[in-house]
């Protein structure tokens, strides 16, 4: 049984990390990062089987790929707080000579990252490749992927989605951060995507919803169900219904904070809504 109090505390601390990272360099993507804080905390603390030492090959452990690399602040925070690198290094986010580049990369050797992402639409393909290698290596662990909903407008995703179903890549769980927002506005406004669930189903995936995508209990129980669906001849898609900017009242339900950092006053306001739990870096 998960210690939800500890997980909730971690979520709040991760929110603080996100806000402080982007505030310091006056750049970065807080909205999507905040919306996925609970998902990342659940994934790294309750769902993935992970080895202590990071290796690029990641044999005999579950793997995670972030396709929408712009939500790097939440990825970096959770990686640091999961022991991949010192939390103090969050201080270097987006600074010159940092391993914490604006978008995640293997290029600077940051533990926890297995492929660069940022240019959108490439993560599902890489995840399929990693999942196929796991099968060839007779490694029964899973590959988890997160992509944005707006990101699904990139055509490469649908090449990958078609491939995974057609070739029974069933050791793969792709979660879609369904917050309905992208830079220029709501996804319905920018390029209506219609029924995402029906699209994945039509392509042959096993699709399920997590309606409360910012609720730890819902995420953990939902993702455990998703895990049970693996190994049955179909790739699994989880539609994670989240709120962009979750946990900071003035950032919620809007695309305005997709790629904008808070100013000093806004940071103070946002942090006051999320008081220190585990300690700032």
């Amino acid at each position: 049984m998960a210690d939800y109090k500890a997980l909730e505390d971690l979520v709040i601390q991760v929110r603080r990390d996100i806000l402080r990272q982007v505030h310091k360099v006056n750049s970065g993507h807080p909205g999507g990062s905040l919306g996925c804080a609970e998902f990342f905390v659940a994934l790294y603390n309750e769902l993935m089987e992970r080895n202590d030492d990071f290796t690029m090959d990641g044999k005999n452990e579950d793997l995670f790929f972030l396709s929408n690399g712009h939500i790097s602040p939440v990825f970096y925070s959770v990686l640091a707080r999961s022991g991949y690198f010192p939390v103090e290094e969050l201080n270097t986010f987006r600074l010159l000579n940092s391993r914490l580049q604006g978008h995640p990369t293997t290029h600077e050797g940051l533990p926890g990252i297995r492929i660069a992402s940022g240019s959108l639409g490439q993560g599902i393909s890489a995840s399929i490749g990693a999942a196929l290698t796991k099968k060839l290596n007779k490694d029964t662990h899973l590959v988890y992927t997160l992509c944005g909903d707006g990101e699904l407008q990139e055509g490469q995703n649908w090449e990958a989605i078609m491939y995974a179903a057609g070739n029974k890549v069933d050791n793969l769980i792709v979660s879609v951060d369904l917050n309905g927002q992208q830079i220029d506005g709501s996804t319905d406004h920018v390029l209506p995507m219609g029924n995402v669930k029906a699209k994945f189903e039509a392509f042959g995936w096993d699709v399920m919803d997590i309606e409360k995508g910012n609720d730890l209990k819902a995420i953990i129980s939902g993702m455990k169900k998703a895990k049970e669906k693996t190994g049955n001849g179909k790739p699994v898609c989880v539609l994670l219904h989240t709120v962009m900017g979750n946990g900071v009242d003035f950032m919620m339900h809007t695309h305005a904070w997709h790629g904008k950092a808070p100013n000093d006053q806004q940071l103070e306001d946002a942090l006051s809504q999320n008081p220190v739990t585990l300690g700032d870096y």
Partner: protein
Amino acid sequence: MKKYTDTGKKDTRSGFGDGLTELGKKNKDVVALCADLTGSLKMDEFKENHPERFFQVGIAEANMIGMAAGMTIGGKIPFTGTFANFSTGRVYDQIRQSVAYSGKNVKICASHAGLTLGEDGATHQILEDIGLMKMLPGMTVINTCDYNQTKAATIAIADFEGPVYLRFGRPKVANFTPADQNFQIGKAVQLQEGTDVTIVATGHLVWEALEAAKTLNENGVTADVINIHTIKPLDAEAIIKSVKKTGCVVTAEEHNFLGGLGESVARLLSTQHPAPQEFIATQDTFGESGTPEQLMDKYGLNAAAIVNAVTKVTARK
């Protein structure tokens, strides 16, 4: 003057296919991906021998490159196969981010490069791919000259850690390099020794350079002929050593003069040993339909054109 014998015309893509077949037997980590051109890339034998290690991705090159990048995670060595145009321009960002920037051990194997693809025309004849690939940090770029060399290169790149672009062609061409050659990435091959001019050639133009050297020799002009199979990293030492001796250079390639081997040689010489240079390459143009021979003739990519360029460049010394 050394004599080179064509042991029977063969296509370089078959060298790739046969190299891959051999790799399949000796390296269990080698996997192959193809975007609906298995026959054209001569990957059938690998597919038959190792169905579990062959991945038909369909007409979806972007996904193929991304999958290949992902397959390296866990130790596989993916070889992707499609035409050069669809191996590079179509998937540039996928190669840039998921392969090159991510430092993945993917071998991008590209057939039907250049004009000699022939009748399909300009939509399929890429003349910009060497430039696209050599501009990517960390990418090794290889353009082999015949069947034997392509087979040897295919086998050699499996043992090399890092992303590689291997470029070869469609038509049957002279097969003249040794079947048992030791292919060394980044190492130029000196084919003829001369003192009047250096001819640096890659790919299908290497045989034409040898033919040109024969004609030149009959006219009393001796040429260093250097086969640059690896355009990046460029064997600077071999080129500079030769040009120091001859004082001028002709570069020859089945590619646009912008971004190709010629430009790499020009950059090298301009910074280290300036010398007159002539470029045998396409002149910032698209190709068109025609037979390979007709096209190479029309666009000035053959022995006769190299001879003319040598006359021009030696006059500029």
